[in-house]
């Protein structure tokens, strides 16, 4: 079963501490993502979920703790190098280049592998057919759902070992949320490990194999997604029941 400790971890975070300026947001967060696994991180607003993502990918320099990719230490590497090693990241907002066309956005996604760009772009268009019609349109003109698709497609251009998603459902209409989650499932089904941060805890738990509950910049709970979904504590505090 995916998620058992015996499987090799693709991504492992140990006691990560990070913040901005004088403010420390993460006070030691640990988690792991196994091969082919989909892991959700849920928690209330201000729990440090987005900071966790940024610290893993190198946009916010970690102050302590370690980030391991297949056992290799990538802590504190600059973002462009973390990405080059196969950790791709979709930010919550502003996750496309609005003045670039859809095609150019995907080209930028494949910036590190320009030779494969064409082939991978065809694959992306196969996965997201609605983007194919709009390949020459500027990304700023796309709808919210289409942008999210483009953001996913852009992040997949490097064929990442693990895909980090920061609130993929934020600001989308319910129908679009379903569609985006379906695509995420599809991506995970091809073997790409996914680490997803979500405000929409219920949906995220339904989708994920395992989950962590984050609060006040620290781990609170972890377990199989189904168990957390069924746990009355989680339900009361984080699912709003």
């Amino acid at each position, binding site marked *: 079963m995916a998620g058992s400790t015996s499987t090799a971890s693709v991504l492992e975070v140990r006691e990560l501490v990070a913040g901005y300026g004088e403010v420390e947001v993460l006070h030691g967060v640990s988690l792991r993502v196994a091969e082919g696994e989909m892991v959700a991180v849920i928690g209330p607003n201000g729990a440090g979920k987005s900071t966790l993502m940024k610290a893993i990918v190198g946009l916010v320099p970690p102050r302590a703790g370690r980030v391991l990719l297949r056992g290799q230490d990538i802590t504190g590497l600059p973002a462009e190098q973390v*990405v080059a090693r196969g950790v791709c990241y979709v*930010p919550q907002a502003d996750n496309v280049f609005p003045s670039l066309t859809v095609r150019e956005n995907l080209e930028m996604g494949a910036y590190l592998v320009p030779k494969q760009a064409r082939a991978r772009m065809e694959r992306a268009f196969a996965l997201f057919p609605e983007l194919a019609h709009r390949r020459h349109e500027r990304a700023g003109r796309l709808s919210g759902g289409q942008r999210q698709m483009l953001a996913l497609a852009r992040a997949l251009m490097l064929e990442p070992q693990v895909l980090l998603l920061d609130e993929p459902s934020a600001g989308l209409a319910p129908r679009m949320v379903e569609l985006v989650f379906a695509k995420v499932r599809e991506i995970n089904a091809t073997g790409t490990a996914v680490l997803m941060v979500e405000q929409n805890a219920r949906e995220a738990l339904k989708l994920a194999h395992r989950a962590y509950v984050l609060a006040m910049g620290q781990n609170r709970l972890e377990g199989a997604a189904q168990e957390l979904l069924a746990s009355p504590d989680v339900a009361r505090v984080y699912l709003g029941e």
Partner: protein
Amino acid sequence: MTAIARARAFALSGWQELRYRADALGGALLWALVLSFLVGAAVSSPDHFAVGLVVGSVYALAALGLTLVYGVLRFANFAHGDLMMLGAYLAYFVLTGAVVGTRRDVHLPRALDSLPGASERLGDLTFGYGLLLATLLAALALALLCIGLDRLVYRPLRRRRAGVVVLAVASLGLAIGLRSLMLMLWGPNPRLYVEGVFPARSFPFGVLLKTDQVFTFGLALGLAALVYLLLFRTRLGKAMRAMADNPDLARVSGIDTDRVTTATWALAGALMAVAGVLLALQAQLNPQLGFVVLLPVFAGAILGGIGNPVGALLGAMVVAMAQETSVGWEIFGRQLDPTYKPGVAFVILIAILLLRPRGLLGART
């Protein structure tokens, strides 16, 4: 309470709607103003219009460099004009080898001038291939200088996460320093690439232009087209645009933003040098010119939509045209004094800021 809150929300949404409409209206008004002005200028004084096109093409090159730096690095580089003039002086220096001495100029033993035939006039132009070569060398030198200044000044400030305004203040210091350097090396008196008086040629509609001016227009537009191709057709150019859109997203796409920054400075530096040489070719080399062009170039870049390269071209053209044709305007029954040329750029700037701050082609924020 809820009724008040609802009324407040309603008023706010109404305000938003109004702002949105005002933006669209301002845009339409601005476009209408610009187009009718251009047509009017072309019809009423084709002579000034033609000069405006030439000056505008120089401003356009300058604005292109400015807007690139602004787009990619997000700060207003107030040293832009002085860097342009430094480029012009560097070209002068490699061409003639002259620097100011105590009583008169001191010359290097050898300069491009002393190459065989370097000062022989190319066709009807006033200069020979020596100046073209000098411009090329100055472009190279200024590109390197810009990269150096970025490493020495701007990058450390960025690393410290100093705000963009701090970078702008630093650029003011650089501007003053560069101008003083030019005054030290070449003195306050104006200089010329080529001495002598050259007649202008007649064109249809009573337009009189020197061949140098036609050359300036052609070279500037040619370079602008090359920059366009670079930005929209090459991987590096697209990376520059991507970084201008969203630097963090560029980094997590694997784009080496340090390299893109270096490339941007190199490109901007080369453009500045060529723009500086062309500007000096219109009249003369003068250390004060750098600050004089700063305002119209900024106004042009903002009019086009700052950060937008195509907008920079268009905006700079319009500002130059307004400045050139303003000499013939009558306001309150009196001819506008030519001293008001910089004032014209300021009025345009204020008009854009009031009507539509994002400019003609700028993205909505």
